[in-house]
């Protein structure tokens, strides 16, 4: 097998357990020229892209809901919950919060919820995926209620934990990029407030 293929094999074999930067550093340490590594990484990425399933076609954004509609923010970390809530409220959104999946169901009873923004990793009291399932299964929210998941996981790990492709689900990484969050809120709900400019 040619060395270029061996390098590609090595990357494929270990990419799920080690960041590419770390694998690249290991190869450089062992005297493999950087150009060969970069070429292997390019081949790895182009292969992955051609194998990836096409993303689901997003539906057109729904019209802004009438009446008092809330964004539900779910995070088991009090600091991050407060930061996001302050930012959204500062921009003019109505926000309600929960620290876990069960609380999110109780918290939203009797409220009109237009969107969930939830952490993925909340293993102590049920993950963000659990929160979404519980809420969508409850009678008082729409079955296709949109959700934006937030995560501090690597993009690869985060995608593994997401439910099946869903046009009403988005993923953002922490720390939160407010401009991207604003775009996702607009795409999913039709609501648009300047959270990327607002000071809380």
């Amino acid at each position, binding site marked *: 097998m040619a060395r270029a293929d061996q390098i590609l094999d090595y990357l494929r074999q*270990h990419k799920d357990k080690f960041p590419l930067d770390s694998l690249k550093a290991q*190869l450089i340490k062992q005297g493999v020229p950087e150009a060969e590594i970069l070429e292997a990484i390019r081949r790895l990425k182009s292969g992955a892209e051609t194998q990836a399933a096409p993303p689901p076609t997003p539906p057109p954004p729904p019209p802004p809901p009438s009446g008092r509609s809330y964004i539900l923010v779910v995070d088991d970390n*009090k*600091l991050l919950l407060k*930061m996001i809530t302050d*930012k959204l409220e500062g921009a003019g959104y109505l926000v309600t919060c929960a620290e876990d999946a069960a609380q999110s169901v109780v918290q939203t009873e009797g409220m009109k919820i237009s969107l969930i923004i939830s952490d993925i990793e909340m293993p102590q009291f049920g993950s963000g995926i659990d929160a979404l399932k519980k809420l969508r299964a409850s009678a008082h929210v729409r079955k296709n209620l949109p959700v934006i998941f937030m995560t*501090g996981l690597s993009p690869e790990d985060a995608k593994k934990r997401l439910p099946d492709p869903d046009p009403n689900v988005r993923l953002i990484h922490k*720390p939160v990029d407010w401009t991207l969050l604003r775009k996702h809120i607009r795409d999913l709900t039709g609501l648009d407030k300047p959270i990327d400019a607002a000071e*809380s």
Partner: protein
Amino acid sequence: MDLSQYKDLFVTEARQYLQGMKTALDGLDKNPACKDSLGALYLTAHSMKGMAMSMEFTQIAQLSAGLEHLADRCRSADLRYDPSAGAVFREGAKALDLLVDAVQKKAPYEGDLAPLLDRIHALLAPPEFKL
């Protein structure tokens, strides 16, 4: 966003996570294969990293990320939790304590994290590439 308004909440939350990390390490001293303790170790490091990144506390985020990766490898049985890994976690928890102290006192952290980060990265290093 004015992050200084969240400093006290950060310190309070960080102290709780660090206590959780120490409890997990105590559990692992008794049973190095305890999945609950390994899971708790991962979770506390992950949560510390998330908070620190959002607060732009780079050193805390960097160290927590290293411990998170290490704990993730241990909990997936990809790396054995042994006394040398335990010592790195203990040292990491102690350094995080001091870093949180520095945040609380609005003082710079006086320690040098590089040797500890090197030890973490050595444990996390990928296997050799064999031609």
